[in-house]
């Protein structure tokens, strides 16, 4: 039992993100309403973003901005004192791109609603068969 606690503590954040990701994936697969599918897609995206940020963390390290900047003189900058900046860079752009793609998804949903007067997937499929 005592072996399990360190594993639990060091992995529980990944499990939370996987749970979030699965909630999003389930919404994308099982929900009938297109807007709910988009919400599911966004939950999935958020889970991936959280996962990446979590990868960048280091114990006893601070944010990736070099302390004292130019006044630091010739102090050596140790990589161990700063968290990994790379996941932050990747996710910074991913968040804004997620908002932009959400806009395109909503635009498509508006077009679908203008054509079929509904956003329920089964009703749209039935109307498509009629035509």
């Amino acid at each position: 039992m005592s072996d399990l606690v360190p594993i639990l503590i060091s992995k529980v954040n990944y499990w939370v993100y996987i749970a979030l990701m699965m909630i999003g994936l389930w919404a994308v697969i099982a929900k009938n309403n297109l807007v709910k599918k988009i919400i599911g897609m966004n939950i999935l995206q958020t889970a991936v973003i959280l996962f990446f940020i979590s990868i960048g963390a280091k114990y006893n390290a601070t944010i990736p901005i070099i302390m004292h900047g130019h006044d630091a003189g010739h102090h050596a900058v140790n990589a161990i004192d700063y968290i990994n900046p790379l996941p932050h860079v990747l996710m910074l752009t991913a968040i804004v791109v997620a908002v932009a793609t959400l806009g395109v998804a909503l635009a498509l949903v508006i077009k679908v609603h203008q054509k079929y007067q509904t956003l329920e997937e089964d009703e749209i499929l039935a109307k498509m068969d009629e035509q």
Partner: protein
Amino acid sequence: MKVLGTLVVLLFGGLLIYGTLDFPSWGDPAAPASTHVSPRYIERTLEETSVPNIVTAVLADYRGYDTMFETIVIFTAGIACLFLLRVIKREEAEARMYRHIPTGITLRVKQRARLPESMEEFERIDLMWVPYDLIVKTGCRLIIPFSQLFALYVIAHGHHSPGGGFQGGVILGASIALYAISTNLRSGLAWFGEKAAVLLCGLGVFIYASTGALCMLLGAGYLDYGALSTLFGVDPVTARSHGILIVEIGVGISVMAVMVLLYYNIVSAGRQDEGL
């Protein structure tokens, strides 16, 4: 579909959780993600680009190509939304609504009806009657300048503190959307028009791409800001930080314009007359 979906999700989630057992534990400095290229970024950024914020330096300099194409993705999303939704042919609504500002009386003018001779005391409002909301309007009028100032700070101070073009651009776009929400879409468009938004969203990408091309003209590689040193009259390391600032401003302009375009088109389903 629900049963199948649940099964797929449970199976996939179980596999992923099984996969995490091999992961390095949280916060481990020796994790593979923190060992290969990231220590080099942390240790060399200040001497190579003179930018203390490593995230900004990696974003706009080391991974400049990636960020340029991310900006183009955002630009494309804005243009795609415009092309999908925008209705150019404007059908006249069957009536117009005006509010008499001193008394608050609303006036409904039918299509092709004659308007009163003096319209100075009237303001046009949406067909779905909106009450005159002094608290919301005044509150937003107080918030908007400060949020825009903060956005400019976030863009300009991205070298020394968390921030940059993407974040600042989103805050700027949000301030314009806030104005359109607190009054109506028509006033928002009168303040920040659609044409300006389309032009600015192209201009941001142009600033980014032409900075790269300028470096090529000055004899270095594309987006190699060190070449700008002759232009600014500073050493190549400081020129890199100036180049990053120019690029971040371009990103900020583009992101702001795209956020505004997305807002205008989605709330009004592309008609850009009434909505929210």
